[in-house]
Every structure is written in structure tokens, then in C-alpha cells.
């Protein structure tokens, strides 16, 4: 009953491979950008300027309370309206769908990451900072060698969980026509009518990524509590 030999014909395997590669590209590019966004937002929020703090709060709350799909639609359909002609042409010349999906996904994940980083840093007792200063470290040194390593360790499971969400959310790019895994899956289904087989293969492909991320997150969550003893 379960026969996958049809995949070997007519280049279906190639379509699947293209889908997986696009999904991975979407995940890696948005993942890296979201870390940049997350660090930028966390830093802005930590600065003693009320305007910055307010700005970060608005950005974070927008990304938390609006569905990711809607964020993608705003970027893909809405934002080009604002751009000057030249820039629009430049974006349209490339892969517009991929570009805007990446922007939307990175900003969304970045906003969530900044919240995780903030609570990671807050979990470090203030005495750590004071102790670091009193042994003669500068502000930057104490941050680099004392606060940050502990903060990352606390925040790592949460950050890996964000990676899991980002990986799953990349499937939403299908709605604006990015040729990622789910888009290709439906395409192969329309060509072959082997719905069950095609979707099963795609589901397993997604699970390989997500189960690995889940296992990693659990591994670090367990390790965190062991050595610190706090």
C-alpha cells in the first residue's frame, strides 16, 4: 500500500529536494538575522533612554499579539506600497516572496528572542555584577566574562525553542508563494494524486528537523541545572 517508487519518476524527488533546501535557507537566514534583531532590541531596551524602551516594547508586543501569517501578509502585500520605485524594482527583480518572508520571520523571531535574552540576563543576580566590578573588571569585561556566559546558559533552552518555532513558522511562507517544503508538497500532490504518501514524506522531513531541535533543547535544559547548583 505504501509505495514511494513514484517519487523516482518525473523529477519529483528534485522538487522535494528544492523544497527542503528552500525551507532550510529560510530557516538559517531568518535564524541568523533574528539573533541580530534580538540582540539589537535587548541592547536598546537596556539603555537608560525611555524612548528606546518604549519603542522596543511596542515592537515586541506587536510581534507577540499579531499572528505570524498576518505579519507576513503585511510585509508582502503592504510594505512595497511605501518603498520608492527604484528599491521596489530592485526587490522585484529578485525573489520577492523569499525576501519578504525572511524579513517577516526574522523580525518575529527577533522580538521573541529579545524577550528570552532579557529574562536570561535578569536571572543573573545583581551581586554577580558587583562582585565582578569589585575584583576590578570594567563594565564591558564583567558583561563579557561574567554576566553573558551565565545568561546564555539560562536562555539557551528558550532560544532553541524559538528555533523550533521558526522552523515550523517557515511553512507559512507558502501562503505568499515561497517554494518551500510545504508548497512543493502540495505541488507534487497535485501532479501525482498520491496525497497520503506525499504528505507523509513531507511530515517526516519536518519531524527530522523539529525532533532534533526538541532533543537539543531538552539536553541543555537538563545540563543547566546540574553544574550551577543555584
Amino acid at each position, binding site marked *: 500500500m505504501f509505495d514511494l517508487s513514484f517519487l523516482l519518476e518525473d523529477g519529483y524527488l528534485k522538487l522535494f529536494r528544492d523544497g527542503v533546501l528552500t525551507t532550510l535557507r529560510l530557516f538559517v537566514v531568518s535564524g541568523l538575522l533574528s539573533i541580530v534583531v534580538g540582540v539589537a532590541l535587548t541592547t536598546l531596551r537596556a539603555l537608560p533612554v525611555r524612548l528606546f524602551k518604549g519603542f522596543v516594547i511596542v515592537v515586541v508586543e506587536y510581534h507577540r499579539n499579531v*499572528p505570524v501569517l498576518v505579519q507576513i501578509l503585511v510585509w508582502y502585500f503592504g510594505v512595497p506600497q511605501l518603498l520608492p520605485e527604484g528599491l521596489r524594482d530592485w526587490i522585484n527583480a529578485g525573489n520577492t516572496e523569499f525576501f519578504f518572508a525572511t524579513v517577516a520571520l526574522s523580525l518575529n523571531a527577533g522580538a521573541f528572542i529579545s524577550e528570552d535574552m532579557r529574562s536570561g540576563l535578569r536571572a543573573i543576580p545583581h551581586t554577580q555584577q558587583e562582585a565582578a566590578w569589585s575584583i576590578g573588571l570594567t563594565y564591558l569585561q564583567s558583561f563579557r566574562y561574567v554576566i553573558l556566559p551565565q545568561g546564555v546558559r539560562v536562555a539557551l533552552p528558550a532560544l532553541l525553542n524559538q528555533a523550533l518555532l521558526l522552523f515550523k513558522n517557515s511553512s507559512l511562507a507558502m501562503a505568499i508563494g515561497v517554494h518551500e517544503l510545504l508548497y512543493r508538497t502540495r505541488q507534487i500532490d497535485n501532479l501525482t494524486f498520491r496525497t497520503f504518501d506525499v504528505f507523509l514524506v513531507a511530515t517526516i522531513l*519536518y519531524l527530522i528537523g523539529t525532533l532534533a531541535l526538541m532533543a537539543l533543547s531538552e539536553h541543555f535544559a537538563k545540563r543547566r541545572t546540574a553544574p550551577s547548583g543555584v
Partner: protein
Amino acid sequence: MYEILHDYLALFLVGSWPNGPLGGVAITLILSALGLAISFPISVVIALAQVSPWRWMRRAASVWTRLVRGIPLLMIIFWAYFAVPVLVGAEVSAFTTAVCAIIVYESAFLSQIVRAGLEGLPRGQMEAARSNGLSWLQSMRYVQLPQALANMLPSIVNQFVSIIKATSLAYVIGVPELTYSAAQVNTIVLTKPLQTFLVLAAFYFVLCFAISRFAGWLERRIARQRAGLA
């Protein structure tokens, strides 16, 4: 933005009702409420299986939640789209398909909340109940669950926000909910995609922000009450 909101308020709120089917915010809320109402009892069963003294039950429940958490919701919606009609042996509306997919997806996440609530109770509760002669199920029913449910109320309200956001994906299979309304408005107006989709984002924002604020208030109130009792 105001013009869009003013001219198409009815379409955003109730879709083409009363001349056509109910849609917009109304369907988004009905879909979310149904999703929560049906997935909650299922999640309690899954959570009970996960904390049960029977090893094979714990295994089965944890494999199930892991699988569901590892598959993108959009993928589950497509599975429901072709699997539900086969299972019930009749044609099924897009709305029912979306409800089924949301139940499967959200019950896995809710079960984690219920499980955390159960595991957060002191061990003595269960031991005391068992030593009073209650069976395992009776202790769960009369001692553990009532206490755990009170504790996890804020988390459940927060999960309701996630469910509202999740219903936006029902747009992809043509359920006339809020996002679908915005897409309709966009095809009518044509020249103002940014304003249209920002109005859409604003609708979700107001809904979700208000409910998460309510969850925060609930959490503080429960914490205060407990402090008063202690």
C-alpha cells in the same frame, strides 16, 4: 487606515452576514472558543496519561505530544483537509476541517500546561489522598485536578491567545474568518494593501493584547490570594 476601517467595518466584524455566511471576527472567535472548549478535555486526558503510573501510557502520550508539536500547524490543517472526510465518510466543510486541526494541535500544547500544573503540586497531596483510600483516578479527580486547574488558569487564558492567532491559518483553506475578510477587502479596494493589512493586524492586536493582559491580571490575583491564605 480610518477609511478602510470605516467603509468595511461590517466585513471585518461579521463577514458577509446577514446576506451570506457569518465571517470575520465573529468566526475567528467562534473557531477559537470551539477549539479551546473541545481541546481542553482532551488535553486533560493526555496529561493524565503522562503522569499516570502506567509506563506504556506515559510513553504513548509523550510520543503523541512530541509528534504533534513537531509538525507545523499548516501541515496538520492539510492532513485534516484530506483525512477527516475519509474518516467520517462524508464531505466536510472548511470550518470543520479547521476545528479538527486546531483541536489536534492545541490539545498537545494544552496538555503540557495541565501536566505542569499537576506536577507542580506537592507530592504529599497524592500520598494523602491515596492513604485515605482513594484510587489513583479518584485522587486525581477530587484532589489533584481541582487544585491544578486553579493554578493553571492564567496559562490557559494565554493559550487562548495562541489559539486565536492559530485560527488565522484557516484562511489558507478558505474559512471566512478575520484574515480572509481582510483579503476580501484587499481585492475590493486594491490600491491600499498596507492600510488594509494594518487594520487586520490591529484587530488581532486589540483582541490578543486585551486577553493576555487579562491573563496577567488573573495571575497576579491568584498569587495574591495564595499569599493571603498562606
